[in-house]
């Protein structure tokens, strides 16, 4: 089954943690370096996330994401290193191009922040089943309708892609040219998009009815098949994160 979910099935402590604890970690991992505002704190959090990813046995899945980000971050380093406003201390030169210490230092901060976010979010999505995550949020007050949209989209979009492939095959079997130059592809687009949109609308209507008869709009208080336990470890972890965030906030004002 094709799914947009990035969840990696493993049996580790990180996987077993309550999704809310992981959301709190994401928040803390992003906010703490911002509040403290130095490279060391950002580096420390990035290292912590790196270790947690290794512990959860999902680090290999993060590498492609990092590879994609590195390309963008590299361009930030180059541009900031050369042209940041206030650049005045040359660090090194490449031919006639001068890179400045202030720009490189500033871009390093951005890179570390991005790395932090990437690692923290990866930890969340790679170790948490989407329905568990959504159900945790719904149980904490997120609208069930919004929660349904978030969780269903991961499976329904691949289903729509399958439907589109079927329609492409059907149009191709009727002699329509689907491949070729830009003009051919533009010509093929309209006979394709019509049935795709219509089929999707019909599916949405039918699925809405199916949800209705399964009490989706019931005003009763929802219960959950998979109750996400908040263990003692979760409570300790959440407490530590709260203390770290509060400490960083204090540092910010006292400094």
């Amino acid at each position, binding site marked *: *089954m094709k*799914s947009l*979910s990035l969840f990696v099935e493993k049996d580790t402590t990180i996987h077993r943690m309550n999704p809310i604890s992981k959301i709190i970690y994401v928040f803390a991992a992003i906010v703490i370096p911002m509040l403290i505002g130095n490279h060391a704190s950002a580096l420390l959090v990035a290292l912590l996330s790196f270790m947690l990813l290794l512990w959860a046995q999902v680090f290999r899945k993060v590498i492609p994401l990092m590879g994609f980000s590195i390309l963008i971050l590299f361009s930030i380093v180059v541009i900031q290193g050369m042209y940041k406003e206030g650049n005045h201390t040359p660090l090194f030169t490449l031919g006639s191009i001068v890179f400045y210490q202030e720009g490189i230092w500033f871009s390093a901060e951005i890179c570390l922040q991005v790395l932090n976010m990437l690692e923290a979010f990866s930890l969340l999505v790679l170790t948490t*089943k*989407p*329905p568990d995550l*959504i159900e945790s949020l719904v149980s904490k007050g997120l609208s*069930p309708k919004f929660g*349904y949209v978030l*969780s*269903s989209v991961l*499976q*329904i979009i691949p*289903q729509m892609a399958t439907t589109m492939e079927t329609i492409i095959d059907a149009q191709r079997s009727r002699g329509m040219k689907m491949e070729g130059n830009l003009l051919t592809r533009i010509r093929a687009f309209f006979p394709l998009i019509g049935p795709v949109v219509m089929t999707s609308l019909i*599916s949405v209507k*039918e*699925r*809405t*009815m*199916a*949800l*209705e*008869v*399964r*009490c*989706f*709009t*019931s*005003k*009763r*208080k*929802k*219960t*959950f*098949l*998979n*109750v996400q336990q908040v263990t003692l470890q979760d409570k300790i972890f959440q407490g530590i994160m709260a203390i770290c965030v509060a400490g960083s906030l204090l540092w910010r004002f006292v400094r």
Partner: protein
Amino acid sequence: MKKIIVNDLKYKYPLAQTLALKGLSFSVEAGEFIGIVGENLSGKSTLCQALVGLVPHFFKGAYGGSVVVSGIEVATSEIAELALKVGLVFQNPFTQVTGSKLTVYEEIAFGLENVGIDREEMKDQIDQALHLLDIYKFKDRNPFDLSGGQMQRMAIAGIIAMRPEILVLDEPTSQLDPQGAEEVFKAIQKLSKEGMTVIMVEHKMEKIAQYSDRVMLLHQGEIIDFDTPGKVFSRADLMGYGVNAPIFTQICKGLGAQNQTNALYPVTLDEAYAAVVKTGHE
């Protein structure tokens, strides 16, 4: 005890020129298996939707008369509350999958979660539904990985788990291959034997004749006949309403072989065999 009482039910879809249902009146006893037959646009699906409250709550439009299911007036009750009394299974198994759950087990729990069933009770009801529909072995599979027949049985299980008193099925096998259709029919037969009231729209007349206690013949939003399969399928004007009799009935009509007991044409294989033997066509 009457489970369904429909009185002078009229309905017109928004923007439609004519009534989809033209003053239907009938009742259904508890535990009955009712087959609904009729050509396209005869009002079969609209009637199913009216029994679960989609008409008039989901589909707006002009609505008149009354539908009472398990003592609840449909027009004044919410669909979510009605769903606990009457369940509806649609023809397309794919669009009945919520898409928000990763396993069959969780998928079946969806309705129960929505009405706040206690977790242990929920598990008990899911297990029973899975066993009843013979899909327990698929409980850990992704719903989209099932075949059409398995998926439709999962859809039925999702409804059955909510323990409705009435099950309405709108052409549940129309998009399935013969094997998938057979799996679904066996499951429904099982439910019927358990005492559930079943209303089933279907174009497979042999199956309708085999399982139904009574058959409702609809045509252009009106009830033409509502009687035993033998009486309905023996009608000389059946074809005029766009409905073919079961193949056994057609053969026996050709041979002039009628049931010995009621002088009607046979509707099942066993009846046909007995009638043909009786008339010496063996």
